């Protein structure tokens, strides 16, 4: 862990983007998230770390209500984005998800062309007025996901024909293309080589200027490199949450310390 550079540790703003209070998630009888309360700041990268199965993905899915699509999942508690309760009856999850983008843990490109993958979101949300604008969005999104140079000559090729790492970046490009206000990234670099990882991390830095980014990662060095805030999850509980530098250098909870020093997980 000697490559940890706590750059840009300072949080740009203290404005709260996402406020979760007393969130519980059950899958049938399994209690997957236990009373999590967290304030996620705007224009900040927040990292979720923790051992496998501790509920990071589950909590992430609460923020764009993707848990609604899992029949057995039940979410309780209060989650607000910009002060609005996203679980309110009046909230249309479809509209919410346009605002809160997500990159899934497993790359899941559509079995369509690369171009169609990226342009799908802008198309259904009417973000482009004509083909030229759409082309523009596709290109910038692919550039930001560090995929443009590899695919610019074969935009018509199927997205599923790409390598695992390329698919992951395609999914990032797809999520970025809809210009969400919040971007949830579930282990976006798990299949990437160091070069692509670096490019995605640069993208995250760039996104932070405008958006709030939540990233789940198993790489402690990545968490320390890209995030300003870190939350440590353990068996469904959020054990510790604070500035990334503090969590990594001075964890208050024993479980956090054990995890980041490599004793568990």
């Amino acid at each position: 862990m000697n490559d940890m550079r706590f750059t840009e540790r300072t949080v740009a703003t203290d404005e709260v983007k996402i406020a979760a209070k007393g969130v519980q998630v059950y899958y049938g009888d399994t209690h997957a998230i236990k009373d999590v309360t967290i304030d996620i700041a705007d224009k900040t990268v927040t990292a979720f770390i923790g051992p496998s199965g501790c509920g990071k993905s589950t909590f992430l899915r609460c923020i764009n209500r993707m848990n609604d699509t899992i029949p057995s999942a039940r979410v309780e508690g209060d989650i607000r984005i910009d002060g609005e309760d996203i679980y309110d009856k009046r909230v249309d999850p479809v509209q919410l998800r346009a605002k809160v983008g997500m990159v899934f843990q497993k790359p899941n490109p559509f079995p369509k062309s690369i171009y169609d993958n990226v342009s799908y979101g802008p198309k259904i949300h009417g973000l482009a007025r004509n083909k030229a604008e759409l082309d523009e969005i596709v290109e910038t999104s692919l550039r930001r996901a560090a995929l443009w140079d590899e695919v610019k000559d074969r935009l018509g090729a199927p997205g599923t024909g790409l390598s695992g790492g390329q698919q992951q970046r395609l999914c990032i490009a797809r999520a970025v293309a809809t210009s969400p206000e919040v971007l949830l990234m579930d282990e976006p670099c798990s299949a990437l080589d160091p070069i692509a990882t670096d490019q995605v991390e640069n993208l995250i830095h760039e996104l932070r200027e405008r958006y709030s980014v939540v990233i789940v990662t198993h790489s402690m060095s990545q968490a320390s490199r890209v995030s300003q805030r870190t939350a440590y999850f353990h068996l469904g509980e959020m054990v510790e949450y604070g500035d990334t530098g503090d969590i990594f250098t001075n964890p208050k909870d024993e479980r956090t310390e054990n995890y980041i020093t490599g004793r568990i997980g």
Partner: protein
Amino acid sequence: MTDATAETPRRGSGTGSLMVPDARTAKRNAREKRFRLYGLVAVCTGILMLALLLTSILSAGLSAFRQTTIQVEVPLVAERLDPEGNRDPAQMAKVTTFGYAPLLRDALIGTIESAGIETELDPRAIADMVSDESVAQLRAFVLANPGVLGQTIPVEVLASGRIDGFFKGRVTYQTAELDKNISPEQLQLAEALQEAGLLATGFNWRFITAPDASTTRPEAAGLGVAILGSFYMMLVVLALALPIGVAASIYLEEFAPQNKFTDLIEVNISNLAAVPSIVFGILGLAIFINFAGLPQSAPIVGGLVLTLMTLPTIIIATRASLKSVPPSIRSAALGLGASRMQTVFHHVLPLAMPGILTGTIIGLAQALGETAPLLLIGMVAFVREYPGAPWEGGLFDPATALPVQVYNFTQRSDPAFVERASGAIIVLLIFLLIMNLAAIFLRRKFERRW
């Protein structure tokens, strides 16, 4: 040594050489070989059965596609066919087939004489060599073209069923001795006509296009009405079962909550698929004919009954192919802010398409071959009139269906109908083959890599 056995599971033989298979491996390999053999035997049995079926049908039915005809020069004597002499079709129609029969008989005798063939047969016996249907055909032709009156026109008339059977090997001189419908002398004359080039056996278009004929005229019986009726019913089934089935499946699979009620529906649909088809016939009779008052023997009723039968098949196939679309595709679309409907129509349905189409075509093929429910709703009737075009209410006109026509043919006593029945089966099988090929083609076309 004891330590080692405690740590690693002991191998069957102690040699450890990879060149010699140990006892366990040899046993496993033998088992695999046996299993492969069973499989091969099963496949061969299946192929053998299929080959037997096909040869028996083809050998019995191919001759239905050939027909013996006699070339006759018929002088259309105007005075006898149009006694009033005004060429008014209504007046001409008063001359029945009894007026035409002697004309054709004399023409036949004349043709034989002018070909220089000697025969001792009396005129009646000679007239019996052509099908009764020919007289009716001649009359229909004259009524349709009154202008030909007074001319002598060449007509290709159907030979009688027995003469036709003689050239297909079904009738011989020996059987003719015992048959009151044909005599060896008539057969001799037929052979002489063939030598003179006046009698020939050619491809039988009429078998495919002509309507059914009465039990005494097997040589004239065709499948035209049955093919049209089957086609109309398939139209009805396709137009109703596909949209209803797909809509129901999409609702059940993508929108309906998972609860006791949907479970109940699911069980019922599976059960419906296993309900004997005749039950659907009774249902159709009760609902569509007795209650709704739709006409009997109509393709619309047949189509509705077959729709009921095909729906479960389509729903089951569609649901299975919707289920097989990876959930990650749905998550991806929903995560981008697509609505559920957009998710289904933009991403899930295109991926499920090959399965849906295959299921639909298999359902249609099943419906095409279905007989029992159609018997109950009166499609077994003897229909000689073609139904009208679908847009002219043809769906409500009486018609029969291919499998019912097969059944009809087998119920008739004249052995010539055996050939017709097998021929009809061949036509049915060809349609099924075409549908299955279409299923394979569509599957190939729509199949995509994940």
